[in-house]
């Protein structure tokens, strides 16, 4: 091959490369843009998610209240039924019906409303719980009979939605829950400064309710709390013990090696089994076979601990593996038994990783819903559970129940409950991060 020939060839090659370069660079830019787009899309989903939740849920933390002037009734407070103070103080003014006080007060505010039907409509502006909150306020104030007190009582959910702008007053009258007259009354109350949005304490102190303005997440929170206690008490010790056994004591000879593999595969698989299947297990074993009570946090906690166990085992094994072998060997060389080596030296070193794994497992348990549906924790429960066997729901189940309610006023409360749930998860995950950093600094 002559040198001219070679030159010719390299020139055409160079030309070809140069010609293709623009195309290849364009493709490179496109590829890079696609990657950026995908990442941005993922983050945008996240942003959109939180933005929509906060936009919907923030308003549920306040609740419209109406200011009523109530005269302290004479009979009950002057002559208490129970002078020794044995009975619940709330009982003391029972002889006077607090609902009557509310109606009196409304009559004063709207002297022109006289017909029975109108009065009934007027009373519907307030929550059915208005009488109860008047009663509570009167007892708390302990004022002399005849004094006038100004009391904020919760408004009905419809009024609440109207004042939050979630109810369009321009829709045809028969298509909305508030009549024209009622809307005028609300406007009048607002003009007199008697309508105000105040902190929605019912959301945190009440159990579930059919009335949106009274519905709260306290019952669900307590249910979740008891469940997590059970889960923590079972999954943490069992998970760590299992990890210790598998890492330190499981025999590793030729015969048992396949058995070890089997356990390994089994645990990894268990971590990926759909949670609803654990619910089926709970239903068949704990409820049908062991006859434990339905809807109880105890059973929920048992199911959730089986669910979190693989997470904790996997994290703990990783933490134990990462302890430096020199510590192990030093302990053994100084005459420690294997058990002493593990409990005095390896586990303290592995603790940050173990704790982090546990907290992550617990936060997964806190957000879990599907298995709880299987074991009957989806009932409508008003009472706040006070123990491990009381019927209860859990926070995510409450979210599910509220999301399913056709009543539109529950939509914002669902978002608020979600924000509370996410808040708890955030705190737990931050705790995991802090623990890891603290312990790592110490070691």
């Amino acid at each position, binding site marked *: 091959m002559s040198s001219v020939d070679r030159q010719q060839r390299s020139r055409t090659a160079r030309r070809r490369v140069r010609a293709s370069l623009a195309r290849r660079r364009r493709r*490179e830019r496109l590829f*890079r843009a696609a990657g950026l787009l995908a990442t941005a899309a993922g983050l945008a989903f996240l942003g959109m998610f939180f933005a929509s939740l906060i936009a919907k849920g923030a308003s549920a933390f306040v609740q419209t209240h109406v200011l009523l002037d109530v005269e302290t009734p004479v009979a009950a407070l002057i002559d208490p039924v129970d002078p020794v103070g044995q009975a619940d103080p709330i009982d003391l003014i029972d002889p006077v019906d607090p609902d009557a006080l509310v109606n009196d007060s409304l009559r004063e505010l709207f002297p022109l409303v006289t017909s029975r039907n109108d009065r009934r409509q007027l009373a519907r502006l307030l929550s059915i719980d208005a009488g109860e909150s008047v009663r509570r306020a009167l007892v708390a104030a302990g004022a002399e009979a005849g004094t006038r007190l100004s009391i904020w009582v919760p408004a009905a959910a419809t009024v609440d939605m109207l004042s939050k702008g979630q109810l369009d007053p321009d829709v045809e009258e028969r298509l909305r829950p508030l009549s024209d007259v009622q809307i005028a009354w609300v406007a009048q109350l607002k003009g007199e400064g008697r309508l105000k949005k105040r902190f929605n304490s019912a959301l945190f102190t009440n159990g579930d309710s059919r009335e949106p303005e009274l519905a709260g997440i306290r019952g669900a929170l307590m249910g979740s709390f008891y469940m997590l206690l059970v889960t923590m008490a079972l999954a943490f010790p069992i998970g760590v013990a299992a990890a210790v056994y598998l890492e330190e004591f499981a025999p590793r000879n030729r015969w048992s090696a396949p058995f070890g593999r089997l356990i390994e595969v089994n645990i990894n698989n268990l971590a990926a089994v759909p949670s609803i299947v654990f619910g089926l297990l709970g239903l068949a074993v704990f409820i049908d076979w062991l006859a434990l009570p339905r809807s109880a946090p105890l059973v929920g906690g048992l199911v959730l601990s089986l669910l979190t166990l693989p997470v904790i085992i996997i994290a703990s094994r990783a933490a134990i593996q990462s302890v430096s072998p020199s510590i192990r060997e030093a302990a053994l060389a100084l005459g420690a038994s294997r058990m002493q080596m593990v409990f005095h030296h390896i586990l303290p070193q592995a603790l940050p990783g173990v704790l982090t794994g546990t907290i992550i497992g617990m936060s997964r348990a806190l957000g879990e819903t*599907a298995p709880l549906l299987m074991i009957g924790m989806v009932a409508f429960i008003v009472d706040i559970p006070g123990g491990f066997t009381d019927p209860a729901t859990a926070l995510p189940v409450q979210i599910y129940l509220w*999301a399913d309610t056709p009543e539109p006023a529950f939509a914002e409360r669902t978002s608020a409950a979600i924000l509370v749930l996410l808040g708890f998860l955030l705190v737990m995950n931050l705790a995991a991060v802090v623990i890891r950093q603290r312990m790592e600094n110490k070691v």
Partner: protein
Amino acid sequence: MQDTTLLLSLTVLALAGFYAGRGRALALVGGPARGRRLHSLPGYYGMFLAMWCLLPPLTLLLAWSLFEGRVITLMLIEGLPDAQRSMSAGELNLLVNNIQNLAVGDAVSVEIDAVLREASSRYRLLQAESRRLLTVLCLGLATLGAVSAWRRIRPEFRARNRVESTVEFFLLLASSIAVLTTIGIVMSVLFEALRFFQQVSIVDFLFGLNWSPQTAIREDQVGSSGSFGIVPLLTGTLLITVIAMLVAVPVGLMSAIYLAEYSSQKVRAAAKPMLEILAGIPTVVYGFFAALTVAPWVRDAGEAIGLDVASESALAAGLVMGIMIIPLVSSLSDDAIKAVPGDMREGALALGATRSEAMTGVILPAALPGIVGGTLLALSRAIGETMIVVMAAGLAANLTANPFEAVTTVTVQIVTLLVGDQEFDSAKTLAAFALGLVLFVVTMTLNVVGLNFVRRYREQYE
């Protein structure tokens, strides 16, 4: 005695046992100064005694609480008048329930008659008797154990070895729970599913094209038998899963590539944990988002371009499910890409490949098994996902491939069949377990294959 009081007194006994055992060991050799004559550290003698004091009664307590209810119920039925004892199982069950409710003061569904009242007071008596017996037995066992352990303590007694082998036994027990859980899952779904297949033939179940599990109460009503063909559920699950994977795989894979190859260290450190937040959000929240935000949006968008979209369309559920599994795909792909040796990438770049060419031509093919494994795991996750579809997908079992129509999935049907249903023997309830069996088998296969891919591939480069 209440369970808590009993546990508390056992704990106190064990604590006392610990100090007694330690003290006895030291006393035998003549004081702490001569402690080295003991085989084990003095504390181990204490632990040995405490162990004997605590473990037998605890075992008894566990067994007792597992079987107490059954035995008492049997004894209760035994003592009922003959008229009641000859009732059918269902009626008897109801009667026993009423007796128990009356005993604790709950509402009773029938009129309270003499038989009921007598039985409930007997029930209370039996319960009190059982508690008393348990307390006596537990405390007796604890004392017995403590005394026998006390007498075995000698200076040359190998207390540490005893304690350690007991601890090791408990460690083994703990690790076998994971295996027992799997066995429990298999057994519970398998047995109930077999009972279901006695009522409905397995061929009809697997190949039937019609799913309408509502069995009527009376025989002569329309559709009284119900039909249990699983095919529409499988296609519905498949449709939603495919939509989810179409969202999750490109987005997850491309973002993993971007973060591994192109982004600066800072962006990566910020974006990666933020994407992982998506994985930590509870699925019920996704379900709410799908049902209340995405589904109406999809419907409006569809109507705007003239399509007929169901308000519970498969598309909405699939889209949101896809978002949920983005981080799973992304982090597993990231692991796979990271595991490819740097030499391979640098070699490609040195030969003049652009970064995208190095990625698609060299790194991705090398990382492919890991990515495929991760995708299989994501697929299994999507198939088993429950809350999103329960809240955003439909209930009607349509056999369709149109993403704008409402479909139902296996998990939705399990939830629908079981929620609120108290009967444990109807075909409806048992069908849920048969579906659970299908779900478990499918996801387990995907998991095992996927994990195998991921693991084998990791070993290849290590």
